């Protein structure tokens, strides 16, 4: 069900109305945005706060494998890791989800059954999204039927960059309708949208169209999640909730590899959107290599010593 906020129903009445609305949003000053993101990156997170952040970050991970070479065995191994990230310490929280291509969704669903870890599937002709709408919808249907709890869709960047905003909006609403009970994450591929103003506009299109999450990127291009574009999207969901009462999640994806980075993102969440978003239901990390660094830092906090890459599992 599309959940277009009533307050903004006029905004999506036509292509020109949507354009007017999007261009009426406050601009983004790139220098100021990046300075703010960098300033929040200097918060010093130690001891108990660090332990809290590490566990929170682990519980927010969408453990991801999106390779052409994925096999059922690899997906099952990843699922096992999601449920039990650190075999040496069973107090380690589970990750939020395992994220796979649609053809692996059934394998993941079987492996994760009863665990509470969600199955996320990239659909809609991920990562380029260059397919007919019917094909994209079929892709989504397929993934949901195979047991996906969450759908990660890519927007049509070509349509966005050529100014056909309503097309982007309508595609998202169509996908949302196809999702059924699955939650929809809308991926903008911020690296291709190129300007911060575009990222803010894309965020609003996604939110108006009923996205449950807005997500930075696919992880398949040069520039993925950055503190600045994530800060910007956090401002967008904060403003959207203030205007409509509807809360939407944020998922930075790609390029977040270290505990230090993950903690910086959590600081952004804490000081921008606020503590309501400090929950795996509302914030996710799209990452695969991040988990092992978090686990090693977690072991360091509990033992006082650094272990090494052989003390965490490879996948």
């Amino acid at each position, binding site marked *: 069900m599309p959940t277009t906020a009533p307050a903004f129903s006029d905004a999506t009445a036509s292509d020109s109305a949507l354009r007017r609305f999007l261009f009426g949003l406050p601009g983004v000053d790139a220098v100021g945005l990046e300075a703010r993101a960098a300033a929040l990156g*200097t918060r010093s997170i130690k001891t108990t706060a660090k332990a809290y952040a590490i566990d929170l970050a682990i519980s927010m991970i969408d453990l991801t494998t999106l390779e052409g070479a994925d096999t059922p065995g690899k997906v099952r191994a990843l699922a096992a890791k999601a449920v039990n990230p650190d075999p040496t310490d069973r107090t380690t929280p589970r990750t939020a989800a395992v994220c796979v291509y649609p053809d692996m969704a059934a394998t993941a669903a079987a492996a994760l059954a009863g665990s509470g870890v969600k199955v996320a599937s990239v659909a809609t002709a991920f990562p380029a999204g260059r397919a007919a709408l019917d094909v994209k919808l079929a892709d989504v249907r397929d993934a949901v039927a195979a047991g996906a709890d969450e759908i990660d869709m890519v927007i049509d960047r070509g349509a966005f960059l050529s100014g056909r905003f309503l097309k982007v909006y309508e595609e998202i609403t169509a996908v949302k309708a196809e999702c059924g009970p699955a939650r929809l994450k809308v991926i903008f591929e911020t690296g291709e949208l190129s300007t911060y103003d575009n990222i803010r506009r894309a965020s609003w299109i996604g939110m108006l169209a009923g996205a449950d999450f807005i997500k930075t990127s696919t992880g398949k291009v040069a520039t993925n999640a950055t503190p600045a574009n994530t800060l910007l999207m956090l401002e967008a969901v904060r403003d959207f909730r203030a205007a409509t009462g509807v809360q939407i999640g944020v998922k930075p994806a790609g390029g977040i590899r270290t505990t230090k980075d993950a903690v910086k993102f959590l600081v952004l969440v*804490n000081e921008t959107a606020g503590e309501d978003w400090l929950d*795996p239901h509302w914030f996710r990390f799209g990452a695969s290599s991040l988990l092992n660094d978090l686990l090693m830092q977690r072991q360091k906090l509990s033992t006082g010593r650094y272990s090494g890459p052989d003390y965490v599992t490879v996948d």
Partner: protein
Amino acid sequence: MASAFEYAPAPESRSVVDIAPSYGLFIDGEFTEAAEGKVFKTVSPSTEEVLSEVARAGTADVDRAVKAARKAFGKWSALPGSERAKYLFRIARIIQERSRELAVLETLDNGKPIKETRDADLPLVAAHFFYYAGWADKLDHAGYGANPRPLGVAGQVIPWNFPLLMLAWKIAPALATGNTVVLKPAETTPLSALFFADICRQAGLPKGVVNILTGYGDAGEALVTHPDVNKVAFTGSTAVGKAIARSVAGTDKKVTLELGGKGANIVFDDAPIDQAVEGIVTGIFFNQGQVCCAGSRLLVQESVQDEVLDALKRRLSTLRLGDPLDKNTDIGAINSAEQLARITALVETGEAEGAERWSAPCELPSSGYWFAPTLFTNVTQAHTVARDEIFGPVLSVLTFRTPDEAVAKANNTQYGLSAGIWTEKGSRILAVADKLRAGVVWANTFNKFDPTSPFGGYKESGYGREGGRHGLEAYLDV
């Protein structure tokens, strides 16, 4: 995950700085006691703990220091510029090497957060010495004619809000141009200047080129009125600035004054709102608002008033006030009990005159001098809080409807040090900046400093410029 993300304390270590129980005056390369033997205590504003006991300079000490500077002037001014540059570069490098120590010291003595001393003050202090070191051998090319001459002995009096940075603004150009210096830091923040004296010795600076006199206003007065001082440089309150201007009137002393301000920060309806809110925060809550160029008057276009104020209040609620040595502290202590009393009195006046007060909901520590980030709405030009410099974390919010009205209100002040413009429209930035009577106008940013950029005021904000090529003029006979 019911508990919020509480940041555990992350205090910077005090052990990197070794504060002696007492300090003397730095005259002619030596630390000496005051002639009258008087001393005073300097306290940490965040805890009221006594940090050290410092000699209190009297008239005789001022005379001794000026004589030492006069004696040193001959040799110092005769050095080739490239030689003076070497000393300045050496000082700059030592400041960088000792920056952590100096940042902690400044935070202890001043009360400002370590985040600011570490990330703003100290890098700028070093940058000023580097910048003016670069000028020392290029004075012929500064635009003041061939071989411009220094003035002689500079008597410099600096305030407590940026103790080491103001010292750098004063001493670096003075030395680069061949002058010698007698500097009096503020009585509440004498320590970093005394550490700087030690740095001068470490750099092998010839004796008498830099002299530091710790003391009160009487020592400052004796210094600026001393007949053998050729140049007076003062940063501080407008009232004292006026007294200095009167006292040197009719003499051949050259004077620069950097005085108070009541900067207008103008937010147009097409501004990048999120960044403007950050800029408003930087404008007035940087250094607890104890900044002469603070953007203490927010002029916001009526159509976005509610949006901006809501965002601003939400943002102020996330500011972290507390131990200045904690790396996560955004708002530190007010510098002194006197300053806190002044802020409190002005805020009470604001309430009495009918402006609406809102203060961030933060807990204030039980000892030390603290004031919560505060803003006043429903302010008009007639209110005291829109006219008088508060020099604290207090923002007065006014509104406007048209650019002309914004300019008229921004300029309707006895001051003219700084202003800010927030708009996405480039042509408006240029058009409005052109009409603002302020020494510095920031566009889509605020409180940004750079040694290459001249700084100074219009009207009662003083005269003369510091920084940049223009800053050389104040120390040259041109």
